[in-house]
């Protein structure tokens, strides 16, 4: 079964078969990352442009390494050093990049839908690396790969997603993906940061999705506890009184994690705010697979580039 699409814009419109194809392909790429020579000639002569309008270390580096390990030429453009500061519109930037004939454009933008707009006007494969509070599909895929690797399955698992769900594209993409694969997703956080009604927008497939009354309710008997980052850059609205108070009521510590299943795993999309949404002894503890997520991120992005940019 091929991935019959030009772009990867979100998880919402992917089928279960497409998700499994991407994850299975990523497993073979994970092996390449353990070889002595971590490079295959698959995308030789292809060009991948990383167009990042928002700050990023992990995702941009991960896409760059993924491209390079497939022998593609990767170019990074960040908004602060591009013509955006001179007032060029998003569409004009995209058309100019298209004129240089890239095979894939990876884009991160603070506006939801920005990658979709670019996908309509360029021939290159467009990969969404995070758009506003909408989707971050490669993050959800690498989370799924990490969960599947640790647990052997995704269907039937209870996954608690905790924190600033309102601003989180990671939570939305994960809610789509995990429910499609049959997991039971429970969302929790401060009530000011929970987008009630979201559960009605997600067709839960074989799984389910609900908001929990408390973080304890969400974590109890969970197989996976996924903490979301408090996005300091988006907290102008007075959603909670202070970081200290947030940490006391909604941070993941050993006591709260003890409510989950004994073999529960802890995930976080990074960068982590130590002592805010997650305590250091949990982030660095045996349950934490935060660095495995980063490792799997490279493999997932190699799979996406292979599947979307490998052809003519």
């Amino acid at each position, binding site marked *: 079964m*091929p*991935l019959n699409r030009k772009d990867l814009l979100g998880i919402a419109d992917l089928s279960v078969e497409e998700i499994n194809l991407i994850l*299975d*392909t990523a497993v*073979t*790429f994970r*092996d*390449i990352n353990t*070889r*002595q*020579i971590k*490079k*295959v*000639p*698959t995308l030789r002569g292809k060009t991948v442009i990383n167009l990042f309008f928002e700050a990023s270390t992990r995702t941009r580096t991960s896409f760059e390494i993924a491209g390079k390990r*497939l022998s593609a030429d990767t170019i990074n453009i960040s908004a602060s050093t591009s013509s955006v500061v001179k007032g060029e519109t998003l569409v004009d930037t995209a058309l100019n990049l298209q004129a240089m004939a890239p095979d894939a454009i990876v884009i991160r933008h603070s506006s939801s839908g920005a990658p979709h707009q670019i996908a309509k006007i360029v021939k290159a494969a467009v990969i969404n690396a995070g758009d506003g509070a909408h989707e971050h599909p490669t993050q959800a895929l690498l989370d799924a790969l990490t969960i599947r690797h640790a647990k052997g399955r995704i269907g039937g698992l209870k996954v608690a997603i905790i924190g600033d769900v309102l601003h989180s594209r990671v939570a939305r993409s994960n809610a789509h993906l995990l429910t499609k694969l049959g997991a039971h997703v429970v969302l929790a956080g401060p009530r000011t940061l929970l987008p009630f009604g979201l559960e009605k927008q997600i067709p839960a497939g074989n799984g389910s999705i609900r908001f929990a009354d408390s973080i304890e309710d969400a974590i109890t008997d969970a197989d996976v506890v996924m903490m979301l980052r408090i996005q300091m850059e988006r907290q102008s609205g007075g959603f909670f009184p202070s970081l200290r108070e947030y940490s006391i009521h909604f941070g993941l510590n050993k006591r709260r994690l003890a409510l989950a299943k004994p073999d529960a795993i802890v995930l976080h999309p990074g960068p982590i705010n130590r002592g805010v949404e997650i305590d250091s002894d949990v982030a660095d503890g045996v349950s934490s697979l935060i660095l495995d997520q980063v490792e799997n991120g490279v493999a997932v992005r190699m799979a996406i580039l*292979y*599947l979307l940019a*490998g*052809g*003519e």
Partner: protein
Amino acid sequence: MEFTQKAVVMTAGDMNRVMARIASQIVENNPDLANVLLVGIHRRGVPLADTIAAKIKEMDGVDVARGTLDITLYRDDLTTVADRPVINKTELPANITGKTIILVDDVLYTGRTIRAAMDELIDFGRPRRVQLAVLIDRGWRELPIQADYVGKTVTTTEAEIIKVMLPEFDDTEQVLLVEQK
């Protein structure tokens, strides 16, 4: 795709005899079997390499080391095939430098698969030498590549297809010469 069967190239008995001969030739040519690594090329080269290893074990009592190779990421026609092929597992020992590697595949045709396999091997290390064993050589080479061990050489037209059927993938064990309808 539907096929017309034109001939039975090999029966299960023929295949068994031929694999035994290839195994004994490998033993004869490589006195230092401890340094030999049999590498099956996905998909049908993998069980064929297992068969050769089993025959060597019967003959000499030696367990020859084995590996598998998926050449998809090294193909020279990836950009022209419509769907991205599914990638199988490449499993080689950590260090292949200094080894005698015997690549095993079912059919030798254009030689492009073997070119890709050699490129992939070189990315893992510097083998002492690389040899090639195939069940069928059907001609039509597009690269200067020859096999060291050949089960059977078959004259074909370009439109004909050699179908190697193995119990691991098909219901039966035989080699057919077919043509697309």
